[in-house]
């Protein structure tokens, strides 16, 4: 099992506070890791460090595959239409697949030309999931998915769509790292944050 992502002894310093240290794990194709723990224990910071947006205090990260990041914000331009937003990001990151089908899959097929500004929070999150669905599997342009509370703002139907998406991505050899409170509908290793000096 080729390791897609290897993290050893990762530590993070925020301001004058040591958020976490000694975090190590390895993820191969088709494996998932759910990051849980109370607020302010560095779940988001861990994902941002892996994404390269935040500098780690110490530790090594090695991955030879590209990553895709889902943050708290949806990176959607209100003035651009649903389709324009989707097409822009998918083409920038080299995604594949039929965009109309992606919108259809997440219940947005009927409003491709609507400006994203009028979408509800749930619909905006579904549009982001539609973007992720263009990077399915281990051989996609972005096989490693870093998702910060992907289930937030989703209703039950949306959550079911999310679980299907993740299952399909894992089945096709992709990797999922998700920070969440309520756990996800996929079997995954768990990394509890909050107790300093821990790591699975």
């Amino acid at each position, binding site marked *: 099992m080729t390791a897609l992502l290897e993290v050893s002894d990762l530590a993070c310093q925020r301001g004058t506070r040591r958020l976490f240290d000694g975090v190590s794990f390895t993820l191969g194709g088709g494996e998932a890791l759910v990051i849980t723990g109370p607020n302010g224990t560095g779940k988001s910071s861990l994902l941002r460090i892996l994404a390269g947006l935040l500098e780690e205090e110490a530790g090594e990260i090695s991955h030879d595959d590209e*990553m895709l990041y889902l943050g708290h914000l949806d*990176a959607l331009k209100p*003035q*651009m239409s649903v389709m324009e937003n989707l097409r822009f990001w998918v*083409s920038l990151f080299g995604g594949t697949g039929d965009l109309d089908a992606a919108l259809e899959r997440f219940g947005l097929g009927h409003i491709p030309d609507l400006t994203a500004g009028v979408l509800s929070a749930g619909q905006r999150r579904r549009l982001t999931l539609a973007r992720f669905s263009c990077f399915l599997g281990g051989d996609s342009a972005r096989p490693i998915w870093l998702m910060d509370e992907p289930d937030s703002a989703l209703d039950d139907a949306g959550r079911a769509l999310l679980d299907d998406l993740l299952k399909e991505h894992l089945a096709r050899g992709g990797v999922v790292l998700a920070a969440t409170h309520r756990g996800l509908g996929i079997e995954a290793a768990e990394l509890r944050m909050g107790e300093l000096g821990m790591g699975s």
Partner: protein
Amino acid sequence: MRAFWALVARDIKLAGRLGGGPFVGLGFFIIVVTMVPFGVGADLPLLSRIGPGVLWVAVLLATLLSLDRLFQADFEDGSLDLFLMSPLPVEMQVLAKCLAHWITNTVPLIIAMPAVAFLVNLETGIMLPLIVSLLVGTPSLSLIGALGAALTVGVRRGGLVLSLIVLPLYVPALIFGAAAGTGDLMGTPMLFLGAFSLASLALAPFAAAAALRISVS
């Protein structure tokens, strides 16, 4: 490179749909130029003597006005995070942003120049050198401005600090630009202006990219 032009096209499209497009900057520019005669008096020979300088200062201020949103909008909706992770190098993204900013904000001012120059009684003879000096010099305003915008992204009241940071660095562009606006096309000020723009083209993207990474972290 396709991603580069996709980013330029997106920014131009957004500028068009967002807040009246170029007309806000144009309106501000015309108002600033109109204020000068009120302050200085309607002495036509005096106005024509200070004309190029006034027009250059007005272009400079109009450019500054529109820089505040250069990265701020993407920072606020989370796009900046994705941009920093995209295959397109950040330095190229800064260049794309500067090009889009220059096209949507500064070119309309230059196009409107003949229609506005009469406000300061500009002699028609020096209209061409003025426009050439603007075309040569204003890219440096967008490039250095991008560095200021990248340093103050995510900062409350960043626009104020942006002006304080960027204006001192604009001094060479203003000095050579206003001088080139009155002189001949290949005169020394025009050459120095070109050199200043090229230097900004070479240095500003790297400094701005570093500043963006710092601001996001």
